[in-house]
């Protein structure tokens, strides 16, 4: 029980960080493209 609680104390913030990072990386898989840069005239 003590081991479980101690692990939870560190895994909860780590899990939060991983979830935020996954959320941040989602656009990578949506196929969005940046507007094409204008070529010099």
């Amino acid at each position, binding site marked *: 029980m*003590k*081991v479980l609680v*101690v*692990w939870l*104390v*560190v895994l909860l*913030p*780590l899990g*939060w*960080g*991983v979830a*935020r*990072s*996954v959320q*941040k*990386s*989602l*656009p*990578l898989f949506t196929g*969005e*493209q*940046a507007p*094409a*840069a204008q070529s010099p005239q």
Partner: protein
Amino acid sequence: MRLGIDCQRLCTLSCGAVSGVSGVLMHLLTRQATVAPEGFNRWLVPPAAVAVHMCIGQVYAFSVFNKPLSAELGIPVSQVNTAYMLALVMLGLSAAVFGKWVERSGPRMSIVASWACFCGGLLITAAGVAWRQPWLLWGGYGVVGGIGLGLGYIAPVSTLVKWFPDRPGMATGMAIMGFGGGALVGSPLAQELMTAFAEPSATGAAAALVAMAAIYTIFMLFGAWIVRVPPAGWQPGVDAASGSMATRVKPVASVAVETAWKTPQFWLLWVVLCMNVSAGIGVLGRAADMCQDMFGVSVTIGAGFTGLLSIANMAGRFVWSSISDVIGRKAVYAIYFLLGIVLFAVLPSLQEAQARAAFVACTAILISMYGGGFATVPAYLRDLFGTEQIGAIHGRLITAWSMAAVVGPTLINGLYDRRVAAGVPKGEAYNGTFFLMCGLLAVGFVANLLIRPVAARHHLPTPPDRPATPGSAAPAAAEATKATAATCEGSDK
């Protein structure tokens, strides 16, 4: 007259009480006070290590403060970034200088010292922002905070290696995974706090730094509170329900730090770590720009790419170092280097074919091996030099990281800038840097191949209270040399 005597007595009593309390506190921090009682569950130690590493790993997320601190202090971003570079340099230097002290004083004292420096550094930086003094940023975060990084990095790792002689790779992988995870926690935490504390006239950076120091205080002191060292002669399985585990632990003779750092093995391993870090840090440092330049994607996707690489960096630390317990350290480093060379060599053609998914997959594997390199090195050190002075030896070895943190990006950015200046399109300018990284990895591969077990003459005499290596010192050392050779080559197969 009477009042004077009372005051004197009160003063003596309070001084006595203060010195008594500080004496008790100091005793609680000593190595003796952290020796685990009988029946202690060793699985309580990894969370202590993760808690500390998760906090000091914030250094990887320092870039989130670049623009706010630049605006608050009125200096360019490059000068703000100097604090980050200083912190990494001080990490290596302090680990090298204080490594022996860490071993002598024990993990609790070291973690508390690390907390005082790291959180103190955050507070000094906050004061620097409030008073508009950039030197407090460099001195606070860079120097004082950097010393905290070095102390906090090696203390939990050396403790874990002693608790998990049967699975040193996995154990240190857990702690060092926490360091990688520190960026994942530190970046959004800082952003949330700055948003919460932002005012029309201030970015909220100072208040965010103070709040982070308070939050990290809780976790670092939590780590210091639960950390324990194993009693002398402790072996896994002795206190476990099944005794089968003890038979798996190979005896590894220890080498003194003064001897270890004069051996070719130490310097070959230094090159191995330096090359692995240099190659990985080059990609990590420019990840967002690289993705945008090579594939014409938006800033959001570039940031997403960085986020994905951070996850790969964290996961690789645990996965690869655990694999090293099965196939051996030498084999796993050979994979890092050989697979790394292949993947870096393939990246230019992926850019040419605009194969974004394949590019993302390849770079994620590369960064997982970069993280894995950090996590596997303490176990490699343990195989070569034993556990007695591993903290001190590890401290000296991670100067390779400091060197790579400065040299790697300088080399890579320099080559990239030169190619862009020569008229090479931005998307293709990275190709040269990829081939440069192949070269660095090739050097690391050769250095790894040259690593041999340390000669028995360098081994420390076996302490009489260690039951795992019966007999005299010389046969024990010879036995340990054989075991070391087997572990390095992957005898568990």
